[in-house]
């Protein structure tokens, strides 16, 4: 039986082989090319009817000439003659080349024998290999194979590049959590910093962050949502709208330290708020405004125009339409944007650095007062600033405490983002259009 080599069947021929006793394997090769080719044909001839079956499962045949019965490894891969046959070829027969294959197997094999007849009765010299390839309509030629190789390489490279981004993130997070593990507990969250901030928990900064986030969003959300409403519902396609859109884009790109400078110049000094929770929250509000505007605008744009038209047809005014139909239908996108900004406001340090954050303030440990320890016109601790302070400015803070604070901050931010993602997916599934 011929030896399979991949999906190419291998028939061996040798001067010392035998046509009658050989079976085409490397150990017992055939002697002549004709014998080998008739063996190929026999494989595909239906015993009963004598008709040629269609070639399935094999892609080609290798007819190899070996000097003496030898093992597979000594079979040369050089001096390869490649011929092509295409059983599904419609039209004239070719000459066996890649571009013009033969049309049927029998004719192909006869032609091969004829071509190699000149070299002697074997038709092959030792070391030569004849490769007959079944060339389907969409099988690849050399160019095609190279294209596929390039694609596979490109795909692999891109996958590696993506992994290079994702893996460090996962590794860093895992490392942070591992280092923080001994410290994380309910106590850590609910206790105030103690013993000169080298032990205890992070309650006061945590509450402070909630203050900053809540107040800044209470300021930014109404303005941002209404601005998005303006941009999508009221503004017409003129230079003013273009300018507003440009301004939103630029506002989004302002560096965070410039926001801090603006906060100092405008809120701390000009508005006379001093360094306070209020000044810092206003600064954070200006920082989070552009994303709220953009996501509101996109959420409103996603509401089909037909909804609005239906309302107008019934006599509703523009604001009534927006208030009763458009806004409620866009609420998922709007809320997504707002929630995303929660995590941003919670994580930023620079804008609150000079406008309202404080290194330490003793706050009540228990009772209702510990939930509302800060006054609006006074400074407050914040988790982001706390992380900065204990990692660069306080001695004797155990590593676990620093990592713990970092992990809580990440956890806060990531969980808020996850909520927004889940919310977005849930609301999208409930959409009625």
């Amino acid at each position, binding site marked *: 039986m011929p030896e399979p080599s991949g999906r190419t069947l291998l028939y061996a021929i040798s001067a010392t082989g035998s046509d009658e006793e050989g079976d085409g394997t490397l150990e017992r090769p055939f002697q002549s090319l004709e014998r080998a080719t008739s063996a190929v044909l026999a494989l595909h001839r239906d015993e009963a009817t004598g008709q040629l079956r269609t070639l399935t499962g094999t892609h080609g045949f290798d007819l190899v000439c070996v000097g003496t019965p030898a093992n597979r490894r000594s079979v040369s891969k050089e001096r390869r003659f490649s011929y092509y046959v295409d059983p599904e070829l419609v039209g004239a027969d070719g000459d066996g080349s890649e571009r013009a294959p033969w049309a049927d197997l029998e004719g192909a094999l006869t032609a091969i024998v004829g071509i190699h007849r000149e070299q002697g009765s074997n038709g092959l010299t030792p070391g030569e290999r004849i490769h007959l390839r079944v060339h389907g309509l969409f099988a690849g030629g050399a160019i095609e194979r190279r294209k596929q190789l390039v694609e596979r390489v490109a795909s692999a490279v891109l996958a590696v590049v993506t992994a290079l981004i994702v893996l460090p993130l996962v590794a860093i997070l895992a490392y942070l959590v591992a280092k923080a593990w001994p410290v994380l507990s309910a106590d850590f969250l609910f206790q105030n910093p103690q013993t000169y901030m080298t032990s205890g928990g992070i309650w006061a900064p945590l509450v402070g962050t909630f203050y900053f986030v809540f107040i800044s969003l209470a300021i930014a959300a109404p303005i941002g949502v209404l601005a998005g409403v303006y941009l999508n519902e009221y503004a017409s396609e003129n230079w003013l709208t273009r300018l507003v859109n440009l301004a939103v884009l630029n506002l989004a790109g302002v560096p965070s330290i410039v926001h801090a*400078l603006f906060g100092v110049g405008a809120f701390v000094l000009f508005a006379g708020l001093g360094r306070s929770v209020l000044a810092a929250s206003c600064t954070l509000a200006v920082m989070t405004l552009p994303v709220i505007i953009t996501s509101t605008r996109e959420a409103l744009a996603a509401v089909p125009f037909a909804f609005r038209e239906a309302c107008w047809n019934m006599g509703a005014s523009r604001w009534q339409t927006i208030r009763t139909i458009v806004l409620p239908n866009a609420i998922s996108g709007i809320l997504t944007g707002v929630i995303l900004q929660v995590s941003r406001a919670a994580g930023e340090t620079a804008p609150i650095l000079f406008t309202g954050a404080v290194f330490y303030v003793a706050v009540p440990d228990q009772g209702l007062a510990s939930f509302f320890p800060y006054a609006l016109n006074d400074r407050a601790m914040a988790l982001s600033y706390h992380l900065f302070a204990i990692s660069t400015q306080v001695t004797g803070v155990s590593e676990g405490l620093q990592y713990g604070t970092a992990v809580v901050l990440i956890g806060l931010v990531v969980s808020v983002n996850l909520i927004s993602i889940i919310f977005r997916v849930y609301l999208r599934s409930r959409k009625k259009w």
Partner: protein
Amino acid sequence: MRHPITHRLALLSEPLVEWTIRICGWSAIFFVFAIFFFVFREGAPVLFRDLDLKEFFTSLNWRPDSRIQAQYGVLALLAGTASVTALAMALSVPAGLGAAIFVSEFCGRPTRETLKIVIELLAAIPSVVWGFVGYMVLNPILIWATGAPIGINILNGGIILALMSVPIIMSVGEDALKAVPDTYREAAIALGANRWQVVYKVLLPAAKNGLLAAALLGIGRAVGETMAVLMATGHSVQIPQSLLDPVRTLTATIAAELGETVEGGAHYRVLFVIGSLLMLISLVVNLSADLIVKGIRGKQNA
């Protein structure tokens, strides 16, 4: 039938509501100008009196608190910002664009959704945490890997900034690739192109403006980053000779020094001037990105 009073109220309040909305809409313009105005206002007096602009931009000596002679040269700081940003972009633009191509063209649906969520979470990590990672985690790794005496330097800051910029480059790049009409893809496939050829020969040229905008936005983010570079770059006033040298950026200088300045003093005002410079840089970057994107939209409508 509506109650007559509420109907009249609605009629009266409608213009009021509309005007409120209009004012909120214009607020973005107001805030951008306000930021520039207030930052410039605090810095302006020194621009016309004490500050020699030539010295400002060309001198290496940043000694604002000197008892002998205050020197305000920001050249070393500019070099710091430029070097860290350049390294960050060299790492994040190929990575971000590569990931954008992979996610939008090559991978299957479930992988894509997971990757997008992962990248979104990557984008959410606050910059102070990144600074912490650079300072505590990457620092010893770099010392071990490169044998450099210190691990907080351009390389550290560049890697951290790259990890921070990749999400924005990836998401904007993905949008740019999605914006190429499917007809382009279909035509290419009909001609026998495989996925990579579609990307390389058709999508990249078609989306190149959007991808350029993505890179620019990444640059904007890197230039403006404060806390991460404050903690991870080593904060040293010098022109760097190698990637392993510590540097100081413009943003970190403001963050570190603003607190100690006396309101209205020269040092204070110079810091605001630096802030105005940063604002200008980010304005230019964002405007270019916007113009480039508008360019393709105009071309596609033609």
